[in-house]
């Protein structure tokens, strides 16, 4: 039955995936097993994305399917039964840029891959990133920016994090026009070309 759920998610059969989830839970399957199936399905989709066989449209729909499944599963998880997270990530679109779709896909992929993600939203000033890092103790920051106007705010945010003495924090950047030139320009530790690259970077830093 878990295999059926994995297949339904991977094949983008939204209604089937939700229905199978309900059947699994009603049949006494451990909610954590259902979440493991979701994670396995996302692993397949993520791998396909890396090889060009899966697309942003599928990442978005998979996100919506998992959000529906999560709403059914989470109330049934016993206290203390929740999975252990492998690291904390602070994520946001930098000041002046209001685009959120790519950032939210990155947040979702980090979440299903075991990270505790604090999503600060869009148009986030440098000070807010610094404050979030300090209060959460996160060791990874992800800066998103769709427009070229994000280059300078990214640079400012990296500088603000370093100026706050948070030198052990690793910073990754991403967005449509981000490349190695911009990584050097901003002083970030790495850039990722897509959500899967963000997951790989975060794992390598955890």
């Amino acid at each position, binding site marked *: 039955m878990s295999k059926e759920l994995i297949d339904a998610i991977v094949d983008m059969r939204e209604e089937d995936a939700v229905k199978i989830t309900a059947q699994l839970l009603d049949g006494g399957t451990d909610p954590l097993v259902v979440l493991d199936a979701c994670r396995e399905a996302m692993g397949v989709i993520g791998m396909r994305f890396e090889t060009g066989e899966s697309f942003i449209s599928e990442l978005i*729909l998979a996100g919506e399917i998992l959000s529906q499944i999560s709403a059914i599963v989470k109330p049934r998880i016993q206290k203390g039964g929740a999975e252990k997270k492998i690291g904390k990530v602070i994520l946001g679109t930098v000041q002046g840029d209001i*685009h959120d779709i790519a950032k939210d896909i990155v947040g979702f992929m980090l979440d299903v891959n075991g990270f505790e993600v604090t999503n600060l939203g869009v148009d986030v000033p440098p000070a807010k990133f610094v404050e979030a890092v300090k209060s959460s103790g996160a060791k990874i920051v992800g800066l998103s920016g769709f427009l070229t106007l994000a280059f300078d705010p990214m640079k400012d945010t990296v500088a603000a994090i370093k100026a706050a003495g948070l030198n052990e924090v690793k910073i990754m950047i991403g967005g449509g026009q981000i490349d190695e*030139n911009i990584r050097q320009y901003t002083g970030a530790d790495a850039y990722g070309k897509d959500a899967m690259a963000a997951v790989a970077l975060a794992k390598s830093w955890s």
Partner: protein
Amino acid sequence: MFIRPDNWNQMSPLERRKARLDAWQNAPVPFINPQAEANYKERIERLRKIYDMEPHDRPIADPFMGANEYIVRRKGINGKDMVYNHEKLREPLLEFHNEFQPDTSAMPLPYPGKVMDMLDYKSYIWGGQKLPDNLTIQAVEGEYMTGDEYKEFAADPTNFWMKKYLPRVMPTLAPLAMLTEFPRVSENVDIIDLMVPFGLPPFQAMLKTLMEAGDELMKMLAIVGQTGAMIAGAGFPGMGFNIVKTPFDYLGDTVRGTKGILTDMYRRPNDLLAACEAYVPVLINAVISASDRNGAPCALYVLHKGADGFMSQAQFEKFYWSTWKQVMLALYEEGITSYLFIEGSYNNRLENLAQMPEKSLVCHFDKTDMRRVKEVLSDKFIIAGNVPASLMTAGTVDEVRAYCADLVELFEGSSYIMTHGCYFENTTDEKLRAFIDSVKK
């Protein structure tokens, strides 16, 4: 304005294309002196040969599709100025053209800030309004049409646009929803339904605001138009565009949002396809009318959601390409060249573009592999691109020079326009000069 020759109906698509390009090339320009006139004619003749894919002495470099804001920002103009203070742009623009001697004219897009304020425009935010003064404008993605409204849209896109979409994104226009469906006005009694809203206070208040907004727009257009004429008169021709989108991007960018339309491909594929199909004749008519009105020989598509990575090749061909191709072919029949500004990468879509008739396209790339472009498309179409925005922002002058030199070498013998891959805010004069001069050596 483009006036069709008497034998228009007997002309082939390429003959019509020639007629439109002739009219554009020979449009009257108020030259400031004979030298400016000679320079303009030399420049537009070179561009014309590139558009015609005929032998020419060298490629051109067009700063518009990348540096069009930097060229005024370098003189202290900010985003708010570009939206509200159009007269402040004139001197910096004239200075830029005089100093850099580009092959084509460039200026920021003319955003009518006061008019957008008066319409209470919701689907953008801009400098001096909700964005800080240094920024210009950004789209606010939203679901301005629900998934359940596809059928209503497909039944009559114009009616939906007027009575549902416009009131949602411009609340000042909410009274438009009071209008009757125009095609039902047939008998004399229908005049009553037609005219009732015009007698009601909310509709009259809207008309008053629209007239005031129209006055503001005319003021802005007079300033922008004069600046454009002065740049042309100083010797710099424009590329000749009307901006358009594909049916899928109209629906995705404008009414459904990225998340909405990409999931609609799975959740309501038939509704989405029907809406794209319904939009095709609307778009074709709109572009032809605009080209006839202002004489621009090209339709500039700003392409978004069909790029590699957004959807599979099968989805692209089913949802994106099928209706877009219909629009481009219809425009080709009317002699209008489609200029494709392809954001992101299109490595998987080049064979689709190759299906189009010769000279029907100018293909402007951002992150696509230009070596494959050369191989697959350069014999049939005009090619443009792809100096990276990141290089202009963070690279060195030598790196810009080397990148441009590679492109010039790659497209030797092709019809090629040196352009940036994407718009950017920051660079240096030295890097911009390296870009502009790269084709002149």
